[in-house]
């Protein structure tokens, strides 16, 4: 399905956000001065939409704070990489540190926001993003479990539905968990949700998508935002 697919339903028509639009949407909610870790994959794109006039500190688990954008072609340094092992730069004022300190920043609650991808998020804020549990799959966890529980706010960025139309926002995760009750907000291609102790609250939805239709798509008793 193309990223621009228009979905038609009996009572409404709406357009999903592209992945770039999702990244821009997340970036809008990251305030100046925030210490932020962007997970590998889709969340990495958020960096491209952080406004230049806002000072935001990007952390990378492999020991960087003040991470900058990708270097110009030809200027890559194999010893200056991000968590996805892609070449990056360091901003003026940036710093390097070892893994013990890096994960103390994460586990110790020093990061303000982390943005993670997910296979599933439950209505109670459980996160599944490290392992499908499929037979023969080689498990790899990296820093996902530390990020999931360490940051002051955990944002998930994902498409709301799987390719076969199943909601990834679920009552109970069926994939192995990364963390319990750790997700605060979900930014999807159809809506933004707050996971609160009482309910999953729809903060906003794309134009033309009703609360009832979102309830139908997710099968969850979603509440309207204020």
């Amino acid at each position, binding site marked *: 399905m193309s990223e621009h697919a228009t979905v038609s339903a009996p009572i409404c028509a709406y357009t999903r956000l592209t992945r770039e639009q999702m990244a821009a949407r997340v970036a809008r909610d990251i305030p100046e001065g925030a210490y932020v870790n962007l997970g590998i994959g889709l969340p990495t794109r958020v960096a491209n939409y952080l406004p230049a006039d806002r000072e935001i500190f990007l952390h990378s688990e492999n020991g960087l704070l003040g991470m900058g954008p990708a270097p110009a072609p030809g200027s890559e340094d194999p010893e*200056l990489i991000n968590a996805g092992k892609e070449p990056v730069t360091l901003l003026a004022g940036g710093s390097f540190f070892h893994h013990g300190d890096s994960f103390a920043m994460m586990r110790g609650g020093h990061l303000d926001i982390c943005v993670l991808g997910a296979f599933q998020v439950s209505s109670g804020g459980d996160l599944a993003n490290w392992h499908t549990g499929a037979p023969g799959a080689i498990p790899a966890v990296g820093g996902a479990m530390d990020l999931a529980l360490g940051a002051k706010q955990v944002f998930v960025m994902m498409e709301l539905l799987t390719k076969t139309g199943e909601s990834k926002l679920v009552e109970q995760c069926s994939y192995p968990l990364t963390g319990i009750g750790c997700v605060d907000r979900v930014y999807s291609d159809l809506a933004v949700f707050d996971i609160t102790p009482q309910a999953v609250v729809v903060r906003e939805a794309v134009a033309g998508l009703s609360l009832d239709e979102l309830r139908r798509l997710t099968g969850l008793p979603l509440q309207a935002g204020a």
Partner: protein
Amino acid sequence: MIDKTVASMDAALAGIHDGATIMIGGFGTAGQPTELIDALIAQGARDLTIVNNNAGNGEHGLAALLQARRVRKIICSFPRQADSQVFDALYRAGEIELELVPQGNLAARIEAAGAGLGAIFTPTGYGTLLAEGKETREINGRHYVLEYPIAADFALIKAQRGDRWGNLVYRKAARNFGPIMAMAARCTIAQVADIVPLGQLDPEVIITPGIFVQRVIALTSAVPQSEAA
């Protein structure tokens, strides 16, 4: 005069025995002590337990050590990568044991060994597959998993510069696991680009004090400049 610098890879790796537990620094290939690993392959020790963040990339370095069938078990956080084909094949064939550890727990367990702690309570992994069967405790309303230190017989690490007392400074994000692995191994062997005369490393910026390092080998300018210079 104390001189921890060694002139040859043979001297650097002397005493590494079959069945040893060896920490190897690096995050992917950044900070990976490739020359020490190549020398370890030539040295021949087998039945090794390796502690690393990953499980080898491509066909070189740690991947080559695995390919040479020297590794019985790997303790790591992120084995599966686009270029981890050597590990993937060994794992699927049941020819290597994997202990998968969340990355922060890997770091904390290494630090615990270096700091002489008996165990740690960590929140990471609580309620997940990776904490199954492990002791847990609720402390001030939060849930923790009991995890034990990871110590090693040897650590092979890469630094930018060292001196004959074993003081080290690193380069950029190649630092990663080096400083904490140096603390957790009985014998830490550092490969450096340069050995400088004692006193030339600014004491304010030394990252690994020499107490944690037993051997230093220079890859490029093997002959240190005169300390009197």
